[in-house]
């Protein structure tokens, strides 16, 4: 072999060696990469498993949604998953980049609802806040019938376990096709208000459990941190509606909700007119050439509310309450407003108390309804069998009665 040939062979061998080395190196990196991506991919599975263990019903959702097939609140588990992910990605603040308060209908005479709602819609309100105990919800549904608004918030009472199902169904029927429906538990159920038991028998946890099973965005209202912590074990609520104004600031609840991406909805931002002549609020209002109401609505947003409910039956006030996007309350003025805090819930007429834990105390331990002793089949089974017999008899009567 001459020198040239040897040199050529050496170069060839060199190239092959470098080639092998490079390909091995590449293999390693891609292996690393793929094992890394495997890890990332395996994470959601793990968490899915965790969810399945923590919330066994997640793997066993009710299959028949015939009762509310068209409602956006009911969704397939896959769709729920998709929504949950997109919700997690969407910061709560973005929901209202331009603040448009929701229109509250509490204390509006049912005979006036038609006109008031028509005025509200023409003024620019796209969200409505209602409840099954405001006495005007059916009228709201009629008024919204010909319009498709963005969202309707409604509340149902956690009076007793079996009331929840018909209440949900009624709300879904009422607002079917009128807009997205958010159903919330109005308060945490049986509770203590200033030391004494209120709403005895109302099982908030059981009611929430059903709500969370039946709709994809279960929401709550007047829930404090202890309640939220408890029900989050079942499913994180979509939203918590609470009173927020300078007198009752709810900082702890807001912080809790923000941290966990639970939307915060404020009610009674105007504190029932108790700040109408307050010199600090009046001063800030005149600084911005705004009304006291506008300052207070803006305050609730800047405090962290994602949605603020306001109610008025007056057309010019409706427009005024929407005109809150061309100014910002400065940090200094926010501090001055924060200084007005007295922790008085105007709603409950109490002072030095806020919804949870002082007003709505922690969940009460529920006691099983006593049933008399029964044969070994079991107390409940025995009673259900007896009930079934009576249902059969009533059914037969219904069929056989002319």
């Amino acid at each position, binding site marked *: 072999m001459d020198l040239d040939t040897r040199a050529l062979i050496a170069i060839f061998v060199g190239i092959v060696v470098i080639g092998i080395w490079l390909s091995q190196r590449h293999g390693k990196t891609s292996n690393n990469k793929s094992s890394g991506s495997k890890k990332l991919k395996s994470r959601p599975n793990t968490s899915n498993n965790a969810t399945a*263990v923590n*919330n*066994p*019903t997640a793997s*066993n*959702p*009710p*299959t*028949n949604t*015939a*009762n509310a097939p068209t409602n956006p609140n009911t969704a397939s588990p896959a769709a729920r998953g998709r929504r949950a992910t997109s919700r997690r990605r969407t910061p709560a603040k973005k929901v209202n980049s331009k603040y448009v308060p929701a229109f509250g209908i509490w204390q509006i005479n049912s005979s006036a609802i038609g006109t008031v709602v028509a005025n509200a819609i023409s003024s620019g309100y796209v969200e409505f806040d209602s409840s099954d105990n405001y006495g005007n919800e059916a009228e709201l549904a009629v008024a919204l019938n010909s319009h498709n608004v963005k969202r309707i918030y409604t509340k149902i009472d956690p009076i*007793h*376990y*079996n009331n929840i*199902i*018909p209440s949900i*169904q009624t709300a879904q029927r009422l607002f079917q096709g009128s807009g997205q429906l958010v159903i919330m538990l109005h308060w945490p159920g049986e509770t203590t208000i200033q030391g004494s038991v209120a709403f005895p028998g109302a*099982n908030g*946890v*059981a009611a929430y*459990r*059903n709500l969370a*099973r*039946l709709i994809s965005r279960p929401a709550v209202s007047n829930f404090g941190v202890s309640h939220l912590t408890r029900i989050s*074990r079942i499913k994180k609520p979509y939203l918590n509606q609470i009173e927020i104004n300078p007198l009752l600031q709810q900082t702890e609840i807001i912080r809790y909700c923000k941290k966990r991406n639970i939307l915060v909805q404020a009610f009674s931002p105007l504190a029932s007119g108790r700040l109408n002549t307050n010199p600090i609020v009046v001063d800030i209002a005149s600084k911005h050439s705004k009304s006291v109401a506008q300052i207070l609505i803006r305050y609730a947003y800047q405090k962290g509310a994602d949605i603020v409910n306001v109610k008025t039956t007056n057309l010019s006030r409706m427009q005024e309450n929407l005109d809150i996007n061309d100014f910002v309350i400065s940090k200094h003025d926010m501090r001055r407003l924060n200084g007005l805090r007295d922790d008085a819930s105007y709603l409950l007429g109490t002072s030095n108390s806020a919804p949870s834990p002082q007003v709505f105390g922690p969940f009460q*331990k*529920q*006691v*099983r*309804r006593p*049933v008399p002793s029964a044969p070994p*089949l*079991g*107390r*409940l*089974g025995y*009673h*259900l*069998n007896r*009930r*079934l017999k*009576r*249902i*059969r008899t*009533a*059914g037969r*009567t*219904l*069929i056989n*009665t*002319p």
Partner: protein
Amino acid sequence: MTIARERAFEELRNLVGEYSAELGNIHIVIDDYERNVEKFHVNDKIHKKVAQLEAISGLLLQEVLDANQLLDDIESSLDDHGATKIKVNQLIRLLAEGPNRVAGAEALEHEIQKYLEKDIKNND
């Protein structure tokens, strides 16, 4: 439609309401166990049993939902004997499952209780 039929229907609706209220007791049981499970860090077996209990209560809830739907259907078909008969029979068939499920739930409940008692003793 006659008043007698209307009354019979009301009775049916009330009874189904009571039936579903009794199912609510299962939720209280689950709630009880959830508290204990947290307190004592009980083992996986109990988690599984509670999960089964949850699943049963989910089925019962679905049955109550379906029963309410059937009641609505019956109400709207009260003038049509044939249709009412079919729906009433469907309702009874649907609810007939309830007592068996509840008996199953009670058996689970009993087992969970036993585990819990053992666990509480061990933790003492």
